[in-house]
């Protein structure tokens, strides 16, 4: 027994090293630039692919060829990181918080197709590392020498980084910027150079992490996404911006993984997220994190005034609604399917917007409530034998109850910590749906959730969906302009002031969380009947990311933004997927382009331009959001 514990501890430490390098880069980038870099996993994957190519080219059996290839791969990734920062991210630092995430997600999509085009679909198993091809006997069992090497690499890199951050001017600047951003600007430091170098450095670490996996793991096209979620977990568990914390968290995750599979072999899917949820509940800023100095908000512009729709905007909204109403008589039959789906996504996006926009609570796990709504409907049909309408009424409550429980924990945090806790809860919900096969059918889902006979035609179901979605989107809009919505925004703008005028900020955020979950549940339940089936993918990370992208693309500070974002993003994706097999590249490039052209989202930027024109005309400054529809 003791030898197994020993061996599993070593295994955990070995797998911690690459995770540490990747997470550490992510953490530094976030600390300085406040960018939530979804493309970090892509750097990791590219690092592995490049290392494979370079090592093959130089000859992997020679020590120089192998290690030269690994180091060169990391350097090339650093250069790529610098290029990304200079060509794309630098243009959008002034955008609202989290907006840069959109651009990095566009990069993820592009890199996936680029990697496929360059390296092909087949997995690449790299050579073993020269000098570390064999094993040593440790307490009677064989242990690969390369794993031992990795165990040593972790602390060595930690020490090097520590030295870099404590003893060099650059490191001091990075630490200062992580602690307090305004201060660096005040010190007269060349901020551009600092940001570029930090991004390149972080990317290089990710590339190195990927390259070091070469002797250990087959390089494949799924490496990016499987790494990124775990790296985020490590960053948050360790504490944002803390290198030592990242190492501790990586070791913790690695070791827990190694032992978890002994005790609960089926729980590996969700174990890391459970750990993160527990850590965040006990230590809201991670193991080594500190409460951020200064405002929680990044360097984005001040949120604009929220004014009710102008007559012109109202007219536009009514026109759009009228168009949707008469659409069945104008467009071809099959467009109803697209419009039905887009209406559902619009409600889904609007529900997230209530949290993100007025609430200031970004959620990385909003799909949980969408999925629970869908499962609520499916379970009601399958186990309670309810007809469609009662099932539609029942379903959102499941989502709302989840929002009630999860929200209680989440509103105690803020910023990225809050977002990551929502992600943890979403993964727990997802794992439940995935693993509780008797109830949910596991990943094979629940089939046969079709609409009642009277609603089964495309036309009727479209109108039903449209009616429900319009009502709830408008309701959400009403909430935003009601005293409650104002109180919610007050808590976002200045929690200090809000508490000082008697607003119970957390409780207000909690209610917004529940309402958002409930509304997402409505969208999910409609989606279940629309698709006829539910699957765990409904609450998987990609669906949460979709919601995030829709809100950000539309513009987070406008009420109509998420609806425009839903139609734009999902519509674009659907049309591109039809047009080309390389739709991911085209979609990714489109997102990057839109982000640069519309740095406050589609609606936000349009409004800002309109406002500038009005101000030039001498009228009173006022932003006028379009109505919800």
């Amino acid at each position: 027994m003791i030898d197994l514990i020993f061996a599993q501890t070593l295994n955990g430490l070995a797998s911690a090293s690459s995770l540490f390098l990747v997470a550490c880069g992510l953490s530094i980038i976030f600390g300085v630039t406040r960018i939530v870099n979804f493309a970090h996993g892509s750097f990791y994957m590219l690092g592995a692919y490049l290392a494979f190519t370079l090592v093959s080219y130089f000859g992997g059996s020679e020590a120089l060829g192998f290690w030269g290839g690994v180091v060169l791969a990391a350097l090339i990734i650093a250069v790529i990181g610098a290029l990304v920062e200079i060509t794309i991210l630098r243009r959008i630092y002034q955008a609202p918080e989290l907006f840069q995430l959109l651009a990095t997600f566009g990069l993820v999509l592009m890199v996936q197709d680029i990697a496929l085009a360059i390296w092909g679909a087949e997995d690449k198993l790299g050579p073993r590392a020269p000098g570390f091809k064999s094993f040593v006997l440790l307490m009677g069992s064989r242990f690969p020498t390369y794993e031992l090497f990795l165990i040593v690499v972790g602390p060595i890199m930690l020490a090097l980084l520590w030295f870099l951050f404590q003893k060099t001017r650059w490191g001091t600047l990075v630490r200062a910027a992580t602690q307090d951003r305004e201060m660096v600007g005040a010190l007269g430091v060349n901020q551009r150079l600092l940001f570029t170098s930090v991004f390149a450095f972080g990317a290089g670490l990710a590339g190195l992490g990927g390259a070091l996996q070469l002797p250990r793991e087959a390089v494949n096209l799924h490496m990016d996404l499987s790494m990124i979620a775990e790296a985020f977990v490590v960053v948050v568990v360790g504490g944002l911006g803390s290198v030592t914390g990242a190492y501790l968290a990586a070791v913790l995750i690695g070791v827990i993984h190694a032992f978890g599979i002994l005790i609960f072999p089926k729980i590996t899917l969700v174990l890391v997220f459970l750990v993160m949820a527990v850590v965040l509940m006990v230590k809201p800023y991670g193991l080594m994190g500190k409460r951020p100095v200064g405002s929680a908000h990044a360097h984005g512009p001040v949120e604009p005034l929220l004014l009710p729709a102008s007559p012109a905007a109202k007219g536009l909204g009514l026109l759009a609604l009228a168009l949707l109403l008469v659409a069945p008589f104008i467009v071809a039959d099959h467009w109803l399917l697209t419009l039905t789906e887009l209406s559902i996504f619009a409600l889904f996006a609007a529900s997230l917007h209530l949290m993100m926009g007025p609430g200031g609570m970004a959620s990385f796990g909003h799909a949980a409530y969408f999925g629970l709504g869908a499962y609520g409907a499916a379970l009601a049909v399958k186990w309670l034998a309810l007809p469609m309408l009662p099932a539609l009424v029942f379903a959102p409550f499941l989502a709302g109850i989840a929002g009630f429980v999860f929200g209680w924990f989440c509103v105690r945090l803020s910023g990225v910590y809050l977002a990551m806790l929502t992600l943890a809860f979403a993964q727990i919900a997802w794992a439940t749906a995935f693993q509780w096969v008797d109830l949910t059918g596991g990943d094979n889902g629940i089939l046969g959730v079709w609409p009642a006979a009277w609603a089964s035609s495309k036309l009727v179901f479209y109108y039903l969906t449209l009616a429900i979605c319009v009502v709830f989107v408008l309701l959400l809009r009403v909430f935003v302009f009601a005293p409650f919505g104002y109180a919610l925004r007050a808590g976002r703008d200045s929690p200090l002031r809000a508490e000082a005028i008697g607003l119970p900020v957390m409780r207000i955020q909690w209610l917004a969380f529940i309402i958002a979950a409930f509304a997402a549940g409505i969208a999910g339940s409609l989606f279940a009947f629309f698709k006829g089936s539910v699957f765990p993918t409904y609450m998987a990370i990609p669906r949460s990311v979709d919601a995030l992208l829709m809100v950000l693309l539309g513009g987070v500070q406008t009420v109509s933004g998420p609806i425009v974002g839903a139609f734009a993003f999902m519509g674009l994706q659907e049309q591109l997927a039809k047009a080309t097999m390389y739709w991911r590249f085209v979609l990714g490039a489109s997102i990057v382009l839109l982000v640069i052209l519309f740095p406050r989202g589609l609606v936000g930027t349009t409004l800002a331009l309109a406002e500038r024109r009005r101000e030039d005309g001498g009228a009173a400054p006022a932003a006028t959001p379009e109505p919800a529809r």
Partner: protein
Amino acid sequence: MTPVLEVRNLGKSFGGVRAVDDVSFQVEAGKLLALIGPNGAGKTTCFNMLNGQLPSDRGEVILAGRRISGLKPREVWRLGVGRTFQITATFASMSVRENVQMALISHAGEIWKLFGRAKDRHVAEADALLQQVGMLDQAERACGVLAYGDLKRVELAVAIANQPKLLLMDEPTAGMAPRERIALMALTAEIARQRGIAVLFTEHDMDVVFAHSDAVLVLDRGRLIAQGKAEEVRNDPAVRAVYLGSGATSGGH
């Protein structure tokens, strides 16, 4: 007459350092009491304990005969304590009027209302308050774009929206031009007398203190070293010792 605020033996330590040590004083309705002292004397710590932002280690805070120590800021506010901050805290995405409306909505217990426009509530009351602080002409502007001095005025309007018994002002004139300082404090004094509000404020600018305070408290290293009328305090040797060489009339900020 019972004082509006009574502080008894208030104390707070941070890691063995006594930031506030055995401080006692009272404020009466309609009076302005200045809390002065060099940087790090414990003024803000003292303030934060008064409105519940920071729990105290020892002593009591009594508001109009009721013990408020240990309550949360929003509970303290409900009992009638308004506050402004050293660095202004307003709702940047709301207009000036909406900021005041927000306070009025909260005071009226309407924050859980999901229907009806917030904009249409308490407009006249909000405008009256804005009129009083001289910000009515800028009522439609977003707080995020206001000049600093104007923000201070908005904060003042917000802080008195719940008709408080006590107003706490942490460095109300910091960062303002001298003319603005005088104007703001004159305004505050007027409002306090008119509405019978007790005002406790911290201040670095001694001109402001001597011009507008009814009484002065002097803190040094957490201890109250003097209190009384401005002239008495000015001549107090202990106070002079503390301020000697540190700029007797205008401390740094």
